């Protein structure tokens, strides 16, 4: 639950995009240490832009973004190594000739800096990260030989090997079967609780995370709502964002059909 700890990610009336194409407009949002935050919104709502902004890959066109004690009004931030990032599936070539341990070791490279060789200590950290996701017995397996869910665990371990303060996950369940989706989200929740990690989870699947997150952030270029799930998941708010793609089947069950699942 959100406590009174200081905010570690702070957007102040921040606008992101490229001149002529605004992806996120006038966002004011503050995320405190230790929160589990779900970021939701339809396709093209700026979720991935938010992710790139937090990673320090995009500077605000207007407004300000502070991450930790760093003002990210220009790029070249030094906070990046402190954010463990799981990119969207499909971004990374999963048949790249690399073993599980080699993949996780890459998580150490940013923090190590140039010209430094990974030491035994770094290997230990990587093995510990693998243990956290239950994949330590696969250390020498080829990444391409793992199932989609196992690969996702390895990528989460790579993020953990950075010993991050924040875990940033972009659609971690896309392309996985339903059981595996649950396992991955359970793992994330477990890591949030055990390692006291701040988690930012971007997803289409509201149902999967609504009962687990402390807070939901609803985006569609602008910030439509932010707060405890019960306050955000109200039909009138959701209908503003999703329009006719919103289907409410039951007072407890919400299904938001997204554009790419929808047959027009």
């Amino acid at each position: 639950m959100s406590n009174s700890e200081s905010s570690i990610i702070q957007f102040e009336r921040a606008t992101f995009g490229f001149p002529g194409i605004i992806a996120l407009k006038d966002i004011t949002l503050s995320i405190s240490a230790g929160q589990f935050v779900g970021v939701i919104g339809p396709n093209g709502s700026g979720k991935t832009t938010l992710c790139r902004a937090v990673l320090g890959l995009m500077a605000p066109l207007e407004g300000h973004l502070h991450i930790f004690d760093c003002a990210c009004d220009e790029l070249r931030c030094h906070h990046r190594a402190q954010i463990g990032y799981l990119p969207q599936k499909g971004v990374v070539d999963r048949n790249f000739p690399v073993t599980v341990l080699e993949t996780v070791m890459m998580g150490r490279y940013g923090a190590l800096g140039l010209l430094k060789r990974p030491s035994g200590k770094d290997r230990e950290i990587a093995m510990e990260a693998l243990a956290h996701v239950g994949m330590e017995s696969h250390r020498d397996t080829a990444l391409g030989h793992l199932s989609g869910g196992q690969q996702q665990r390895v990528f989460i371990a790579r993020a953990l090997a950075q010993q991050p303060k924040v875990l940033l996950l972009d659609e971690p369940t896309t392309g996985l079967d339903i059981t595996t989706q649950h396992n991955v989200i359970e793992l994330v929740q477990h890591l949030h609780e055990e390692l006291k990690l701040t988690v930012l989870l971007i997803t289409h699947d509201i149902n999967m995370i609504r009962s687990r997150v402390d807070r939901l952030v609803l985006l569609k270029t602008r910030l439509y709502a932010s707060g405890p799930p019960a306050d955000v998941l109200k039909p009138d708010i959701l209908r503003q964002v999703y329009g006719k793609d919103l289907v409410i089947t039951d007072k407890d069950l919400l299904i938001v059909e997204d554009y790419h699942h929808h047959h027009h």
Partner: protein
Amino acid sequence: MLDLFTYDFMQRSLLAAAMVGGLCSAVGVFVVLRGLAFVGAGTSHAAFAGVALGYLMGWPPLGLAILFGLATVWITGWMEERGRMKLDVSIGILYTTTMALAILFIGLMKAYNAEVYGYLFGSVLSVTGDELRTIGGLGLLVLGVILLFSKELYFIAFDQEMAEASGVPARRMFFLLLTVIALTVVVSMKTVGAILVFAMILIPASTAYQLTHSLTTLTWYSVAIGVTTSVAGVMISALWDVPSGPAIVLLATTMFFLSVLFSPKRINRPLLSA
């Protein structure tokens, strides 16, 4: 037959082949993994235009080759980064432009110049002591850079954006890789020729790619294959009096097809990988 190896020229060419083979195949690992195959091919033609200009004007050909090669890779990298153009398109344009320049420069020469053609087709058997020292010096520089920055280079080959997101200076590393590719091409041109040098970069790493799932093992395999095929190619060339460049490349290609046929990846890979 063994008499042949007591000749100075033969020892020099074997040494040159081993160095070039090792160098190209080490750089090749990153080229193959980062998907820069076409960049290398374009660079070798640009570097050849530099050589031709050098002989035309009486300027040092190697220096101009380096200049042309570096200009090509940097312009390409810059264009990709700006998102102005896809890499294959910009390289395609630079590739043909520099080749047009090379043909123009050769056409402007008053007399036939065999040395220029040496750079185009490769002539490892005529490598001089000076050239050997240049290959050695630049080769050491390139290998040093690769060793120093190997972890960053592997990471950007795997995923440049993820590397950047985790605090690795990925853009600078990308340009360093492009620079290293250009230098390698120039260093190797005299041995295997501008047309075939790229085979030396591509084939050993692609062969190794078939044989292992580990980055470290991949690199060692690639270098071993590169050195072996280069040296064996020169020996074949000397013993049967065939041109050295094609001997090296065709030998490497044979290894590649064998590795595809007998790839453990092919046999072990699950039919459906989720």
